[in-house]
């Protein structure tokens, strides 16, 4: 399960990136970080992988898998 969110947090952007992720991550269960502009932190918490568009978050509980100028990819857990 994967979710796409943003840093700094932007629920409007997260709504669109969720839709794009459904298209571009076939075979994955893509959870919404926001639905129609409303943040869904419960869904973000349920994801195993988190794609963050934008700056690298100062604190994140998980393992950094990829870092690029556009954003970072994290795996939750130890």
């Amino acid at each position, binding site marked *: 399960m994967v979710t796409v969110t943003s840093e700094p947090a932007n629920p409007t952007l997260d709504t669109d990136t*969720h*839709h*794009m992720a*459904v*298209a*571009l991550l*076939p*075979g994955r*269960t*893509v*959870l*919404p970080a926001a*639905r129609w502009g409303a943040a869904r932190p419960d*869904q973000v918490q349920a994801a195993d992988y988190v794609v963050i568009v934008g700056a690298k978050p100062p604190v994140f509980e998980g393992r950094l898998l990829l870092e690029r100028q556009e954003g970072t990819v994290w795996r939750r857990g130890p």
Partner: protein
Amino acid sequence: MRGGGLWLVFTVLPAVIGAPLLSHPTYGRYGFLGRTALSAGVGAVVLSLVMTAAALVPVPWGLAWLAGVSLVLTFLLRSLLGQEAEGPRPTGSGARAIVLGAVAVSTGAVGAALFATYAGATASTDLFHFWGPKAEAFAAARSIDAEFLRAPWHDHLHPDYPPLVTNLFAFATLAIGRLPWGTAPYTYPLVLAAFGLALAAILAADRPRADAHAIVALAVTVAVLLGNTFLIGGTGDIYLIFYAICAVAILSGPDAGRGSRLLLSGLLLSGAASAKVEGLVFAGATAGLFLLVAPRSRSLRAAVLLLWPTALSLAAWLAYGWTRQLFRFYVGYGSFAKLYPENLTLILRTIGSEFFAAAWGLPFLVPLAVLLLARKSPRMLLPVGLAAILSAFYLFTYLHANVLVRDWVTWSAGRIFTPVAILFAVAPLAREDPAGF
């Protein structure tokens, strides 16, 4: 575009499926290119119906058996056709220079759509938000994936949306093993070219050739101006235009009352109804208006020939939705009677500003000017009445919105009103049965 070319080939493979029907001698006047384009359209309707029925049963999709069963069905459709007397020949072929000029304009317009797509300037975000993900998921599941549609975070995919385009894309995706996102927008110039060929064949079969090609040039140019502007690459919009306008072109001609023409129109209307939600309104209104403006063709048989393919495809789709407890009818835009009439002024103002921004209204005004100058025929009530009904339906749909109204209209109005402009474009060639009403 690696493998994408093959994917595109599979989206037009239904031309083989539809060939048994369109190769019947009664369609001989449409010529090879016109028959091929119409075969692709009819074949896609039959293939989509078989795919939906297979999902309903359920039987996993397979390329060979889907194509085989669809082919058998079009052979059965062909067996419905008997010998027919030749329809009326068009009077006056017109100037060859006009035909050549019009064909050059149509070809140039399709080239413009192709180049714009190559430049990445026509790809719709709806391809990525809606049409593509469904096709991809369905191909992976080898069926219409109810669980994928049921997920609450997939509601932006409109689970109730009719299945022809996603079925067709899924069929091609099954063939090459992936959905080529960069290639999918090329369905726009491809179907546009098929539309031009089919429309030219239909109009030139029973109307003066020069007039027919001039009107095709106008219709294709309008489709390209609006299609390029409002980004319809990879969506169902060009499929709706193909099916809806070709059906109206047949039914607004002097040859419309023949059984073969009614059957073909009925199949095309089914394609319209299966391509987009508004296609169902269009199919019902077309059948009703045709029976109104063509009294000599008014019969139960005509009504059945026009409507049974739509009824069958709709029944299969709704049965799927009911049995999977996904939907009972089209509900994507809210409850039928829940309207916000206080937004009417805002909606009309936004539509107006869209049409008059950067001269986007011209593709509507030029066909209207041609229509006003054309010889009048009572049969014109069919395309013009349909334009009015479709416009009223869009307005009615917009009245269901209470949030982001302006954004919704701005994003969609130019695109969804495109068939209205093309209906105006083809209306000047409406001709009644020469035997009279």
